[in-house]
């Protein structure tokens, strides 16, 4: 765990996160129409970005596992799914906090909300599958297949949900990203925040994969131990 990459990532996360917090709370001007609550957007969008990134990694690592068969890809896939679930949940939570004062409701079946919610369900089913399966080699393949199928589904989900909502025109089509960011300071804050969240995601991913690798090593050591005990018994 105490290797330079891990320490470097931790340091980078701290620095960039402090910078992002400073910019969000001090540097960036308050948005005129929405007021103070608009600032949550600088966390909301980065969360959505890493949640999508997580899904991409789940499928990519899953594919690599099916192709190359090395356990590290499965560990990466699993770790990315867990983090993806975390950030997908944060997207929904921060979105609701923002929506209540601006839209007047915690939740509406807007197209982006619906898409994110379906993504969240996909992550959920992936993690449930992993939780339900006993720790066999098979589950790695099953999970990889589910992850790949899930990512293939995303474009169709986005298209269908968009069509679904345009047929019944939504009342609330104001998107936070489409106005209010004319100020360059807002753009800068968003970019720094995006960078901070990405670095944090990579750091968390790194640590989680390291933990899962350790788990694999423990199983291997226990197997060797079991063999050694058998050998003793036969001496």
């Amino acid at each position, binding site marked *: 765990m105490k290797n330079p990459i891990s320490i470097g990532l931790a340091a980078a996360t701290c620095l960039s996160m402090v910078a992002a917090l400073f910019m969000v709370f001090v540097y960036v001007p308050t948005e005129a129409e929405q007021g103070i609550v608009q600032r949550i957007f600088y966390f909301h969008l980065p969360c959505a970005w890493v949640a999508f990134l997580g899904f991409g990694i789940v499928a990519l690592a899953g594919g690599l596992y099916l192709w190359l068969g090395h356990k590290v890809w499965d560990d990466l896939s699993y770790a990315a799914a867990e983090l993806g679930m975390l950030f997908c949940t944060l997207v929904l939570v921060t979105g609701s906090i923002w929506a209540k004062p601006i839209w007047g409701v915690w939740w509406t079946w807007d197209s982006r909300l619906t898409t994110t919610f379906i993504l969240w369900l996909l992550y959920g089913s992936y993690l449930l599958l992993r939780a*339900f399966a006993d720790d066999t080699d098979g589950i790695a393949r099953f999970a*990889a*297949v589910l992850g790949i199928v*899930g990512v293939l*589904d995303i474009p169709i989900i986005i298209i269908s949900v968009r069509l679904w909502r345009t047929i019944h025109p939504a009342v609330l089509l104001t998107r936070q990203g489409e106005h209010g960011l004319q100020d360059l300071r807002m753009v800068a804050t968003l970019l720094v925040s995006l960078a901070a969240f990405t670095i944090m995601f990579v750091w968390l991913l790194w640590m989680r994969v390291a933990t899962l690798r350790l788990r694999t090593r423990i199983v291997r050591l226990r197997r060797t131990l079991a063999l050694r005990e058998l050998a003793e018994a036969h001496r």
Partner: protein
Amino acid sequence: MLEGFGPILRKDLRLEVRTGESTVVLVSISVLILVVMVLAFGPAGARRAEVAAGALWTALIFAGTMGATRALLSERESGCLRGLLLSPVEPATIYAAKLSVAMIFMAQAGIAVLVVLVLFFNLDFGGALLRLLPVFLLGIVGLAALCTLLATVSGRVRAGAMLLPVMVVPLFAPALIAGSKASAAVLAGQPLGAVITWLKLLGAFDVLFVTAGYLLFEHVIFED
């Protein structure tokens, strides 16, 4: 390329004709779901195209997960799946055969639901029912593709039977939206041309998941 497809399909249909189990279970489950929906919405509600379409697709999803499970179940007895894997048959061919069986089971359930819908609630959809056919067919292809692939997974996992709908429903969500919207429009008397976008979406979904299932099946079918 599909060597062995015919024998597996014939064998499964013969088993089904002999016992009739899947047909009975699937038809009763889907009709029950329909009745539940109708009781909840009231008979007047069921005459509305949107509710009827929603009931149809709800019944289909659950019949679909069960149908795919049933199609694979015949291979679980006495380890017959191993017999197939030890035969000169490509895993993808086994997938194609099981997909077809699942589709046949789902089609039965779907037709049963439609018949009940029309008979018991005096619906007069007329030619709309005929126009519903392409929507319905495109829907069950995608559903069967997804369910067959994932039923293989859930069959290997503790409490898998409960897990199957949890995996299938979010994945099927876009097709569910497209299918129920298109069905509602068609039942309300609109021509097929009006729902062509939804049909295209369903078609894309089918192509994507039949291909994915065909290619990925070999990764879920083997054991450890």
